[in-house]
């Protein structure tokens, strides 16, 4: 098999993943795009491993490791997303901005966080009532 086939497929997949990471707004969709990128890398590694006839099988070993890393990342990542959703009631990347650099003076004071959480709780109540 021509090596260019898997290699081109891999880089195209990777680019699709890059597009997804940049274009998506929902955090879980971003995570899925990252998975696409990682899978592209896996295809690359397997193809190179077979091509090189590597006696150490570094490519396949690294592929297995990458798959495991991806699983670990997605597990932890979803836990984080759910945590954000629970406290902020959103899963959109660009709505999670409470910590940005604020150069304009904001008079909220030390407990702005508390206010945030209360807002979230209120929103939740409204949703439940609706």
């Amino acid at each position, binding site marked *: *098999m*021509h*090596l*260019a*086939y*898997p*290699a*081109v*497929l891999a*880089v*195209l*997949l*990777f*680019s*699709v*993943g*890059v*597009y997804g990471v*940049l*274009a*998506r*707004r*929902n955090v*879980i*969709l971003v*995570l*899925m*795009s990252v*998975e*696409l990128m990682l*899978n592209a890398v*896996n*295809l690359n590694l*397997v193809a190179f*491993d*077979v091509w090189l006839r590597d006696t150490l*099988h570094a490519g*396949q*070993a690294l*592929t*297995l490791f990458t*798959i*495991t*890393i*991806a*699983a*670990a*990342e*997605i*597990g*932890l990542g*979803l*836990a*984080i997303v*759910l945590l954000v959703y*629970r406290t902020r009631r*959103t*899963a959109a990347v*660009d709505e999670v901005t409470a910590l940005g650099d604020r150069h304009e003076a904001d008079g909220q004071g030390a407990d702005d966080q*508390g206010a945030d959480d209360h807002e979230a709780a209120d929103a939740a109540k409204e949703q439940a009532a609706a």
Partner: protein
Amino acid sequence: MSTLLAAAGPLEPAARSYLSPTGQEVVFLLVGVLVLGAAVVSVTTRRLVHAALWLVVALGGLAVEFLLLTAEFVAWVQVLVYLGSVIVLVLFGLMLTRAPIGRSPDADSGNRPAALAVGLASAATLVTLVVDAFRSSWIDLSGAAGTTRVTGEYLFSHWVLPFEALSVLLLAALIGAIVLSRTQGGRARPRAGKLRTAPTKPKER
């Protein structure tokens, strides 16, 4: 699976040319187009759960590609981990964050044109790079490079250290995920079916 693959095409690379692809190459290309198409739909569709399901198609197709590249063990691990666990977790996450049926307003952000430009640019660069580098390289698929026995041998004769480090990683991820998804003060919640002695209200946050 070997017989199924054998039915697909001769294992020996007969002629090395772009113009007369072997049966295996044809299958690889067809599956590749499917994978790529599914991936594109997965990152562009505005229905959240559909995106995840298209991702299933893409990742499953990749498992087939691994099989075609004789990496059998990797292919099964791909199915086991990605299709059986990762996607299920993703769907779980989508459903717990209230994925609506139909189009979702918060699927895409405003910078799609920029993202498209970056994606196309990276695709163009990388494809040029790869095609240029591998224009005269062929894979010889005659040896079985990825059976379970071979995999076991190389993992445990060469890659013990990263393998052990991975176990730390997995345990840390597991504990981290559990502790993050536990609600605050969740240790002593009343079990269903038992009488509550006092109304359990979470302490003021």
